[in-house]
């Protein structure tokens, strides 16, 4: 840590960038800017908070650019128990989120191409290819990424992250903490939870050494409390989707979930979701629906298709179809009740073993069924994501059971969450057409 880095950070981020971004946001709030080709006939205007979301994310990445020499940097997986690192003052970066931003900004083919040229197969997860491509080439959609001092991978989302992060550990020559969460085929056992707890305990000295600091118990409790508060607010926001018309769509949620994934444990995140909840309630009061003439309501299963969000929102919106919930965004809220700042490590072990991706295919089906009932849904779109085997395996049976046993129309849509080369617009349109016809009958 040196003075020069601190000064650079202060001047560039705290003073310069912050003021600029804040100015832009205020300008935006004064005259809400609706993007040029926004289909206002079928979709509600963008959320007012969108400006703040962009600000938070921009500042987050910007402060990352000036992190070297100033803060210890950790790259972590989206489901990782990040609270320990937050409490230790790490700057935390999520390669998955960065990859998603590249996806939204249509830069994946170029960046993943760098990994593919280096020999990484097209058959591996597109998030991993984007990230490895970014690491090898320095290319990014958000400016320079700070080099990590530590890696943290938790297997509660998939096993792929292990292989991915070992590649990163090898390239950066830095320690990798793995938190291995046994998969829940039926129920989690005490032995499983104890195993996760012990790994969390074992990880503390490693994380401490990489940043030369000691973990303060009280700080960990505070961070966990904020994680819990933000998660609970997020859960409430998603629950508002039960209203008819739904005030926000799953597509909105995909964008607005960024802070809960990337900045979980920070007070700014709690404030953010409190503000979003207020805006959502305002929409409910005014009867504003995410889709202007909501006639049918759907659930989205699996990751978003990052490079075609608007296309899908409009395609369905034009037909009065609102995607009001998703198992994916729900994942970051449904675990809030497990978190307990009075027993941080123990409750973290319970929390992080239970995300939907670490639970059986049968449990996922139950979740879909329950959400369909709670949110009064007419059907389910199951995105068969080529890059995400843990989420995608089981979907064929889930789809069949939804249709045949629960009478819920369901569509299996083949694509990839980040790689547009695995997406066929023509095929998708024809399948959606057929599904829409099914919904009408």
């Amino acid at each position: 840590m040196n003075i020069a880095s601190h000064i650079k950070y202060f001047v560039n981020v705290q003073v310069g960038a912050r003021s600029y971004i804040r100015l832009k946001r205020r300008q935006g709030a004064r005259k809400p800017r609706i993007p040029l080709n926004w289909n206002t006939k079928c979709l509600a205007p963008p959320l007012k908070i969108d400006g703040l979301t962009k600000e938070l994310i921009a500042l987050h990445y910007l402060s990352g650019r000036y992190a070297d020499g100033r803060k210890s940097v950790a790259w972590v997986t989206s489901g990782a128990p990040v609270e320990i690192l937050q409490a230790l003052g790490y700057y935390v970066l999520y390669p998955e989120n960065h990859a998603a931003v590249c996806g939204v900004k249509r830069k994946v083919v170029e960046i993943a191409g760098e990994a593919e040229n280096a020999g990484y197969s097209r058959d591996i997860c597109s998030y991993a290819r984007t990230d490895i491509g970014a690491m090898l080439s320095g290319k990014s959609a958000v400016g320079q990424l700070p080099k990590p001092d530590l890696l943290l991978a938790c297997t509660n989302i998939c096993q792929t992250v292990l292989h991915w992060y070992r590649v990163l550990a090898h390239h950066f020559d830095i320690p990798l903490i793995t938190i291995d969460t046994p998969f829940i085929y039926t129920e989690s056992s005490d032995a499983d939870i104890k195993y996760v707890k012990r790994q969390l305990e074992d990880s503390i000295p490693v994380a401490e050494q990489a940043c030369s600091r000691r973990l303060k118990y009280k700080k960990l409790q505070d961070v966990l409390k904020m994680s819990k508060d933000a998660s609970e607010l997020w859960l409430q926001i998603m629950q508002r989707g039960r209203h008819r018309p739904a005030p926000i769509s799953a597509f909105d949620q995909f964008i607005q979930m960024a802070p809960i994934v990337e900045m979980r444990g920070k007070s700014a995140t709690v404030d953010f979701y409190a503000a979003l909840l207020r805006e959502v309630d305002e929409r409910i009061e005014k009867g504003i629906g995410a889709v202007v003439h909501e006639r049918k309501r759907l659930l989205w299963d699996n990751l978003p298709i990052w490079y075609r969000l608007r296309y899908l929102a409009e395609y369905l919106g034009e037909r009065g179809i609102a995607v009001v919930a998703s198992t994916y965004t729900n994942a970051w809220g449904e675990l809030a009740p497990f978190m307990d700042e009075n027993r941080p490590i123990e409750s973290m072990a319970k929390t992080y073993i239970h995300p939907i991706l670490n639970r059986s295919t049968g449990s996922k089906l139950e979740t879909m069924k329950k959400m369909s009932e709670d949110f009064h849904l007419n059907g389910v779109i199951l995105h068969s994501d080529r890059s995400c085997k843990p989420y995608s395996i089981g979907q064929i049976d889930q789809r069949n059971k939804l249709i045949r046993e629960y009478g819920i129309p369901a569509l299996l849509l083949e694509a990839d969450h980040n790689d547009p080369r695995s997406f066929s617009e023509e095929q998708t349109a024809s399948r959606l057409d057929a599904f829409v016809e099914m919904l009408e009958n």
Partner: protein
Amino acid sequence: MPANPAALGIDVGSTTVKLIAVDRNGVILWHHLKTAEPRVEPQVDNFFEMVSKKFGDVSDIPLVATGYGRKLVRQAARQITEITCHARGVYQQLGHGGTLVDIGGQDSKVIIINSSGQVEDFTMNDKCAAGTGRFLESTAGRLHVDVDQMGTVALAAQEEAPISSTCTVFAESEIISKIANGIAVETILKGLHRSLISRIVAMIRSLGLIPPLMLSGGVVKNPAIRSMLSEETGESVILPELPQLMGAYGAALMAL
């Protein structure tokens, strides 16, 4: 009767069959190329009849067979892959190593040739039509453009319509959609060429380009391929003489 050849090389490819006779210095005495017929053995026998008519009895002359159908050439003393043979042929012709790109009807290859003419590394796209000449042929067919004119038409385009599909079948539906939207044929054709070239360039990058860059195979007749390959790699592209015969030539040299 002309001087007896010292060695023979035959390249039994999927689209064409080629035979070359060389003298003991590796100079080409005679060559013959014909469209590949479905039955390999009778066609090969035919070739031998022709070469015998020219030079007399060639049964003692060492022969190496290469190409897709090499195992069916019973007259051959040895069978060697077209990768090794192409490298050898091009090296002899041009006098140096480098990166050789061969885009065939059924597959495409990038071969790194070292300074002694040996294969140092190679990669092939042999699983999927989208990286081969077949991709252009079938998609150009959709656009009702003559295979021989494709390259010229593509180069004449001022703009380029990007084709995002990696699969030939999907690309066809993309093309139909673009035609329906009134996009010009040459614009689409240029995009298709770009698609193919991007795949080739990715293969080159995966090995690491060692200049000079050389091109062989039937597709060299397409001016757009050479031009766009040069554009994307920033290297000038060298063509050996008789680019379609390099496999057979290399085989003959290996037989010497």
